[in-house]
């Protein structure tokens, strides 16, 4: 699950049947921290934001109280902020900052460090609520608190005309800052503990259930593939007999006919040959069907060998296979340049053969056929499109066509066994991609499949 899907607002949205949170609460949800448990997921983006803002705050405070003596704090401050924003060293950073900024007023008070007041205690007080919030609640809440606190402080100071003064904040200012941060802290705390936590629990339960079902599905799928394979093999054994003895019988009958007088016979030899023809044809058809079933089962199990595959070469190959149809039916093909991808060459060739073959096969004989092939890509994937202006698929049939042995109703007499697309989907899924189809009856169909972009290194792991 990607990090961005977990912001509390979306958790609330995902929970069906639940009233959405009030607008102010949703805004606050988006702006502040998620529950500590999902903090981990957010840490990358959050860390950057937190560090940046804390450093900016520091620079502002530097300019607010320009004093060269305070500069040595800068690296420490930055390190502290950085640690604070890291998940692993979160506590270390927070404790360090607390100690550092707690030590300064202590030292100043007891005059342990000479000129400790130069460290500018107003900055310390400014940061205390920030640190406390980060300890108690979470990083994003810290950011909001820090912004609220520092803005308040700066506004107050500016209003008091003390922008360049080198003074403690007044007690009144401090009180304002503390109250503001405490209010924010408490609000965040309540939201996290009582609202998000509840939703999160449900989300976790749902996720667990999903994982369990996924496991079941994987098992079920494996059983099904094994079943298909066993079935195909076991069905083939009797078929060997049916075909074998059909041949034998035909030879015997033919011989009997040769020896018999034609007028003795109740049936004509042509009839018998026709009957045997039906037998043989059916047995061959069943054999082919079993072959395809085995192929489908194998596509689900076969080890994929990933290599750099030129999609253009695959398309060329598929078009060559369809050369006869393309020429005799004067089909126009628009083949735009495609990228290369890391994939299983043979598997992908079969996918391409299937999709190009379908595009040709289901063209409308009533009008000039056009097939377009192109690709789109972004950082993560390549999507290949194969479009035809053929007879199209009814909306009701769209989901069905990917299932084994199921074909669209208007496929009519067109030759095929209904396994090609099931095969395509299995192979593309195994590559981590997806197959999609868009179609309009009488207008044409666009099949597309996506393939994740992989580097050779990532391929090793796949």
């Amino acid at each position: 699950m990607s990090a961005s899907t977990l912001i509390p607002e979306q958790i609330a949205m995902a929970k069906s049947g639940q009233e959405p949170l009030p607008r102010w609460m949703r805004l606050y949800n988006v702006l502040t921290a998620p529950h500590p448990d999902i903090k981990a997921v957010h840490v990358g983006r959050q860390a950057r934001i937190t560090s940046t803002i804390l450093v900016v705050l520091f620079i502002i405070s530097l300019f607010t109280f320009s004093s060269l003596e305070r500069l040595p704090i800068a690296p420490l401050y930055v390190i502290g902020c950085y640690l604070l924003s890291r998940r692993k060293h979160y506590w270390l950073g927070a404790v360090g900052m607390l100690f550092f900024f707690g030590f300064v007023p202590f030292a100043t008070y007891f005059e342990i460090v000479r000129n400790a007041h130069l460290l500018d205690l107003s900055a310390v007080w400014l940061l205390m609520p920030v640190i406390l919030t980060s300890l108690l609640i979470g990083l994003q809440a810290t950011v909001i608190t820090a912004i609220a606190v520092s803005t308040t402080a700066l506004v107050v100071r500016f209003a008091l005309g003390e922008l360049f003064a080198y003074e403690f904040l007044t007690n009144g200012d401090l009180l304002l800052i503390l109250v503001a941060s405490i209010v924010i802290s408490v609000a965040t705390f309540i939201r996290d503990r009582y609202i998000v936590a509840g939703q999160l629990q449900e989300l976790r339960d749902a996720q667990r259930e999903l994982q369990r079902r996924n496991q079941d599905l994987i098992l079920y799928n494996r059983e099904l593939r094994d079943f298909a394979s066993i079935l195909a093999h076991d069905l083939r054994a009797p078929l060997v007999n049916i075909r074998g003895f059909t041949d034998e019988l035909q030879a015997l009958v033919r011989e009997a006919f040769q020896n018999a007088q034609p007028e003795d016979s109740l049936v004509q030899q042509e009839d018998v040959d026709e009957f045997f023809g039906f037998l043989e044809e059916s047995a061959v058809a069943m054999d082919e069907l079993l072959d395809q079933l085995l192929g489908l089962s194998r596509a689900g199990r076969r080890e994929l060998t990933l290599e750099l595959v030129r999609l253009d070469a695959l398309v060329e190959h598929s078009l060559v296979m369809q050369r006869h149809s393309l020429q005799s039916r004067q089909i126009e093909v628009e083949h735009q340049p495609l990228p290369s991808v890391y994939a299983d060459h043979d598997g992908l060739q079969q996918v391409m053969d299937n999709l190009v073959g379908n595009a040709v096969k289901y063209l409308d004989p009533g009008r000039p056929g056009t097939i377009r092939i192109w690709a789109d890509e972004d950082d993560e994937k390549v999507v290949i499109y194969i479009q035809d202006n053929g007879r199209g698929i009814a909306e009701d049939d769209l989901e069905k066509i990917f299932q084994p042995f199921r074909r669209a109703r208007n496929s009519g007499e067109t030759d095929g066994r209904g396994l090609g697309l099931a095969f395509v989907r299995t192979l593309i899924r195994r590559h981590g991609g997806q197959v999609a189809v868009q179609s309009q009856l009488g207008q044409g169909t666009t099949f597309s499949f996506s393939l994740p972009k992989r580097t050779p290194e990532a391929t090793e792991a796949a």
Partner: protein
Amino acid sequence: MSHKTILVVEDNRGHAKLLQIHLHRREIDYPLAIVKSGQEALDYLRQNGDYAAVEPPGLILLDLNLPDISGAELLKTIQGQHPIDQIPRIILTTSDEREDLEACREYGYYSYHVKPPVYDDLADEIRGLLG
């Protein structure tokens, strides 16, 4: 050498019969000894029980899909068992699954044919092996 028998390990009666018909038609006249299970095949090869008096066969035609022990198991069992492992083995199978055949390759075989075999090729092979 013409007295050598061919041991056919095949549980499907039809398949065995077709094999018999086609080999006979191609003038392969070595006697066929047909056994219907892996255990029976082992008994035959080891001359156990009913098979105490039989001669060791000159060739084994082996189906992989057997009711008791699989053809692959059988190959594994006779692997390294002298002199049984000297007898050439030809696999006849309905399966062209790569894994199945790779497992068998480890245990050694002369060739394999997917059923129904091209009988002319099979006959040529048998003639080549049995002379």
